[in-house]
Structures are given as structure tokens and as C-alpha cells.
């Protein structure tokens, strides 16, 4: 054993141990939930269940508020994503391509959404919503979800539009294409990966948003994460694990679908200008 380890080199061994610690730390909680969700019986101190079953899945879907919350969450996420695309993509194009007065001021103003600690900002918003009668309304929930995404929904597409070479647009214009056609046929397709990443990120962000909704949406707008809060305290761990998988599934599916677009560079362009 010892000669084998020596042949491998201490460096390799340390690397391996570090990797194992990382995997346990970051994937352990998720793996644990995945196992719990398909458990029938699991007594302490066994490390694996001795009976597997799907019974908690039927239990979860029989609860009244759970399917309802799934529908509500997806509806809100769709509204938020649609509205943000409508509002932010034109602005991103303007920042990347049009010279206009105060453009830098406008571009940086989006930093404000991330320049305050979240719960502090939400409480301030709730104070305002309370005065405006927006507490416990769909509009209020949608607005609070949009704050989180405004910055990267504008910045990631801005970076994407900026990366489209002007020369390509100009050559299209030289052969007689109008500005709108150039945008549709050249600029938009080339910036699309960035826009897709931003949109997916927006959708997931809205799907997962918990604290803001908890503050302004209770009691009528119980989205999935809000239901999860009560599941944690009221239901057995198995049911919580099942619901966790339901809540995480859209994330994993969308990420796998967009895997080739999502990179550290594209993502970090949403949080800093480069």
C-alpha cells in the first residue's frame, strides 16, 4: 500500500483528498436529499435505507397546497422572465450600440439593485408596498422578483451585444440591409447565447426567490420555496426531500439544456463590467 501511495506522489494524494472533501461538502446535502426522497424506512444508525419506496411522492402530491404552489411558481416565473426580456433587452441594445446622453449613468444605476443587502432592501420595499396597498398582490410579488434580475438581465445582454463585431453589421448594411433587418439577422442571433443565459438565470431566480415573497406575498402567494419553509417544520424529512427534488428539477433540466451557453465568463459579466 505504502509503495503505491509513494509512486502516486504526495501531490496527487492531497489533490484527491481535497476533491473528496469538496464533493462531500457541496454534493453531500443534495445526495442526501435524493436518497431520502426514495426511502421507505431508514432507521438510525444505518447509513443507507433498508427499504426503498415511492410512497412519499404520492403523499406529497395528495397535499392540497403543493400542486397549487407549483403552478403559481411557474406562472410567476414566466411573467417575470417575459417582462424582464421586454424591458431589459432593448435597454441592453441601447447601452451597447447607441450613444446617448447619460448612458453611463443609466448603465451604472443598475448597480443599485445589488448595492444594498437583500433583506434590508426588501423591508424598505415592503414599507412602500404597505403604503401603496401592494402587499399580498401578484404585482407586488412580480416586482420584488424583478429587482433581483434587473442588473444581470441588462448587463449580460449588454456584454453580448458589445461582443458582436461592428464590422459584421456594417458589411450587412453595405449590401443594402436596413437597420432593423441587420439587427434581426446579424446582431440578435450572435447575441442570443448571452440573452438565453440571462433569461434562464432570470427564470430560475424567480422560481427560487424566497425571502422577498415571504415578506410581501404571504398569505395568498405561496410559491414553492414558501411552501418549503412550512414543509421543513411540519412534515417528515422524506416529504421535504421529495418536494426538494420537485423544486430543483426545473433548475437541473434548464441548466442541462443550456449547458453549452453557461460559462463563468458569461455569468460574471452580469455582475461586473468588463
Amino acid at each position: 500500500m505504502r509503495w503505491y501511495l509513494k509512486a502516486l506522489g504526495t501531490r496527487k494524494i492531497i489533490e484527491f483528498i481535497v476533491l473528496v472533501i469538496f464533493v462531500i461538502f457541496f454534493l453531500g446535502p443534495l445526495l442526501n436529499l435524493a436518497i431520502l426522497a426514495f426511502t421507505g424506512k431508514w432507521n438510525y444508525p444505518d447509513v443507507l435505507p433498508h427499504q426503498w419506496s415511492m410512497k412519499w411522492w404520492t403523499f406529497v402530491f395528495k397535499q392540497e397546497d403543493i400542486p397549487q404552489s407549483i403552478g403559481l411558481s411557474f406562472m410567476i416565473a414566466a411573467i417575470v422572465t417575459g417582462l424582464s426580456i421586454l424591458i431589459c433587452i432593448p435597454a441592453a441594445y441601447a447601452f451597447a450600440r447607441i450613444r446617448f446622453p447619460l448612458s453611463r449613468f443609466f448603465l451604472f444605476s443598475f448597480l443599485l439593485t445589488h448595492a444594498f443587502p437583500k433583506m434590508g432592501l426588501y423591508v424598505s420595499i415592503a414599507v412602500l408596498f404597505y403604503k401603496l396597498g401592494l402587499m399580498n398582490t401578484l404585482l407586488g410579488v412580480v416586482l420584488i422578483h424583478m429587482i433581483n434580475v434587473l442588473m444581470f438581465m441588462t448587463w449580460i445582454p449588454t456584454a453580448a451585444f458589445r461582443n458582436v463585431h461592428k464590422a459584421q453589421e456594417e458589411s450587412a448594411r453595405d449590401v443594402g440591409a436596413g437597420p432593423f433587418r441587420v439587427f434581426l439577422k446579424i446582431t440578435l442571433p450572435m447575441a442570443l447565447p448571452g440573452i438565453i443565459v440571462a433569461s434562464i438565470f432570470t427564470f430560475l431566480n424567480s422560481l427560487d426567490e424566497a425571502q422577498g415573497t415571504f415578506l410581501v406575498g404571504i398569505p395568498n402567494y405561496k410559491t414553492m420555496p414558501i411552501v418549503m419553509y412550512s414543509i421543513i417544520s411540519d412534515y417528515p424529512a422524506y416529504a421535504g426531500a421529495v418536494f426538494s427534488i420537485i423544486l430543483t428539477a426545473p433548475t437541473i433540466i434548464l441548466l442541462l439544456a443550456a449547458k453549452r451557453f453557461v460559462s463563468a465568463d458569461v455569468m460574471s459579466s452580469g455582475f461586473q463590467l468588463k
Partner: protein
Amino acid sequence: MGILGVLLVIPSFLLLFVTVVVPIVVSFKESLSNKEGGYDLSNYKFLFTDKLMRANIIFSLEVTVVSVVIVLIVSYALAAYMRFNDGKIVKWIRNMYMIPIFIPSVIATYGLIQLLGNHGWVSRWVLLLGGGDIPRMIFDMKGIIIANLWFNIPFTTMLLGSALSGVPNAVIESAKDVGAGKLRMFTQFILPLTYKTLLVAVTFVFMGVIGSFTAPFLLGPNAPQMLGVSMEQIFGVFQEKQQASALAFFTFLLCSFMGYFYIRSMVKEEGARS
């Protein structure tokens, strides 16, 4: 053309104005008003004289500072490791480290509770491997810090990784040629090229932790509380809007220092490009 640019930007700016600027002004005014309808500093005085509130503030600052330091060290090491090494293990880490960014915070917190809790998966494994009982890890300060590491290390690694990939290989080669040691190479070449991103990372982690709610709400101690939890309670349970506003504003002040440097470095960057 300039008018068009402004028109494209105005809708998103208005949204930003209504959801960020107005609430902050309103809550500032609210935080200064006292029960008799006049204006004074009584709500702020409460923050610093109330024993429980003072404990909460100190507790939050401790958790935040410890989390920020650990997150930065681990993330920088991980990002640098991925940048300057190649091989199977690096490839694995590269493929996996971004997963936690997309996992809903409620789910991750729940997973950590199940994994680390009393009779959780870790304690079962430790028992199997002959380790005896493990010390309590959640429902106190350690739990919140562990959760903060889980949430912030991947994101920070992503930011720093993208900055480090911007360090040209030529710089490192030439540093090696003039015989710079590892430490000198880091302090004189790599750090100066990435310190702006480091600043962004510090800001995001600091504000993320100070304004966090889900993790401390679910796996923190009942007292003292993190400011996010305490704020929600003052607003939602005690219905003390003025006090909640004052607390929100206090967290803004704590972060304004960091926020200022973040915004300034972004503005400088953008100024250099145009």
C-alpha cells in the same frame, strides 16, 4: 438616435427607480419618524440600546467577517488551482463547481440540516467508521457559517476564475523567466491583475451574508439572530415598521462603504474603455 437610446432605457430605469430608489427614501423617512408623529432618532437609539438588538448586530458582524474571510481564501485558492493546473481532477471540479449557484437556497439549507443535523447522514457515517458522536454543527453560529460557505464559495470562485483566466500566460512566463518565486509572482503579478474582481467578490459576499435570510431563518439559533431574520420578525410579527426601517437602513450603512468601492471601481473600468 440619442432620443431612441433614452427611450429604450427609460422603462427599465423607471422600474429601478420605483423598486429601489423610492423605497429607500421612503424607509429612510419612516425610520426617522417617532410614535408621536414627529421626527427624531429614537428608532436608531433603540437599535443600539436594546440588549437583544445589540447582541444581534454583533452576532451578524461576527458571522459576516468570518464567512467573508474563509470564502475569499478558499475561493481564491480554488480558482487559482483551476487556472494553473490541468488534468482529470481539474476538469471534474470545473464541471461541477457551479452547480450550487443554481440550487435554491431553501433546498440547500434543508439538505445541510439533514446532512449535518442530529442523527444526520454525517453522524451515521462517522459512527460507521468508528468515530463516535460528532459535535453539534447546526442551529448555532457554525451552522450559519457553513451554509454561507456553501452558498458563496462557488459564486466567488466563478468571479475570480473568470478574472484569473484574463491573466495572460505571457505574464506568467515572463515572470518565471526573471526568476520570480511563487509568492512574488502572486503578490506582484497575479493579485494586481485581479484585485478589482476581488473587490467585487468581497462586496457580494459581505452583502449577501449581512442581508441573508433563508439560511439563518432555518438553521440559525433563536437568539441572537442574524439581522435579516430579526428584520423580518420586527416587520412581519411585531408590525413595527419604523424600527424595521431603521434596522434596514443600518444594514445599508454597514454596506455603503463596500458598495462605494464596488461602484467606484466599476465606473473607473467603464471610463477606461470609452
